[in-house]
């Protein structure tokens, strides 16, 4: 969909990004930084912190903190632990811990947070869900996201792909996250229904079987 513009982009992010100096070790939480001239269109999942100074469109999820700088322009749903917004954000925000909208920040979108700080001067429009009502929904996503942890290699691949080969980013970034995210979640969900679903099909099958077997039984009786 929106992968082409990203693919067209030259490779400045790879050249600019110093974070890869030390090869990212899977156990250490990494921090990803997109500068003011960087741009991401698609889905991003990161184990660690994310700092955005440029343009993002799509979907962003970080296990750590998300920071949107003054100059950033984000049209994406954001999810993170602590989320702080100082630039423009248009999209839903989920903060497992706290959302801060700074005085230079503007946010349009629905918000689900545990704690919320809006500084004077900030601009915000949307629905807010927090407190007792939001606690359960907020914690609920954490459970599914915990199993997300295992596929670290995939995640690392995504992050590296973003910096190493932005030209290829379009495909890898778009493809892996759906695989990584739903994979841990869906199996547990689908398995439950699967066992239940398996029963109903069995019944119609047996009905069909009876339906076919009944006539022969009936016919002899009639005749």
């Amino acid at each position, binding site marked *: 969909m929106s992968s082409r513009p990203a693919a067209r982009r030259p490779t400045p992010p790879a050249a600019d990004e110093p974070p890869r100096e030390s090869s990212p070790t899977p156990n250490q939480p990494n921090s990803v930084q997109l500068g003011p001239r960087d741009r991401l269109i698609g889905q991003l999942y990161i184990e660690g912190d994310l700092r955005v100074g440029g343009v993002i469109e799509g979907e962003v999820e970080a296990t750590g903190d998300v920071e949107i700088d003054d100059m950033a322009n984000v049209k994406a749903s954001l999810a993170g632990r602590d989320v702080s917004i100082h630039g423009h954000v248009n999209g839903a925000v989920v903060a497992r811990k706290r959302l801060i909208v700074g005085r230079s920040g503007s946010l349009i979108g629905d918000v689900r947070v545990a704690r*919320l700080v809006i500084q*004077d001067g*900030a601009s915000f429009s949307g*629905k807010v869900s927090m*407190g007792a009502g939001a606690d359960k929904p907020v914690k609920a996503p954490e459970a599914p996201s915990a199993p997300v942890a295992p596929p670290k290699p995939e995640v690392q691949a995504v992050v590296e792909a973003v910096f190493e080969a932005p030209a290829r980013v379009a495909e890898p970034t778009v493809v892996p996250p759906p695989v990584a995210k739903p994979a841990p979640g869906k199996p547990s969900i689908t398995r439950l229904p699967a066992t239940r679903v398996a029963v109903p099909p069995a019944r119609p099958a047996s009905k069909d079987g009876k339906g076919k077997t009944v006539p022969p039984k009936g016919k002899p009786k009639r005749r």
Partner: protein
Amino acid sequence: MESAPVETDGQTDAKRDGTKKFTLGPNDSLEGKLTYGGSMTVDGGHAEGEFRIGGNIEIGNGTVVKALLEASNVTIKGEVEGKLTARDKLTLGKSAKLNGDVQVKRLQIEDGATLNGYVRMGDFEQQAGS
């Protein structure tokens, strides 16, 4: 601390800006519709209904208010349930709990405050259009 802090009590405070002030204390209660040109303070009292205030509204710590509120500046430190319109600014203090949709020009929420509802922000002329 600037001039003479000792003399500025609650009483002189009301006179200072020349506006009327409506205060509900811990033993006071109000149920119904109120349209009032001055400012309103609910501090520990019970208030329920519809309050359209020309000045500011302040809901003190530990106060529970169930009402439709409309005022220039609204400061909440207690609990409020109902639709709220702040022609200028809404401030939610650390201990504030607000349940209801909000229309404001400016918004400040301190850490610790709880808010559940839709927030609309912007000029009120545009509000009719959108």
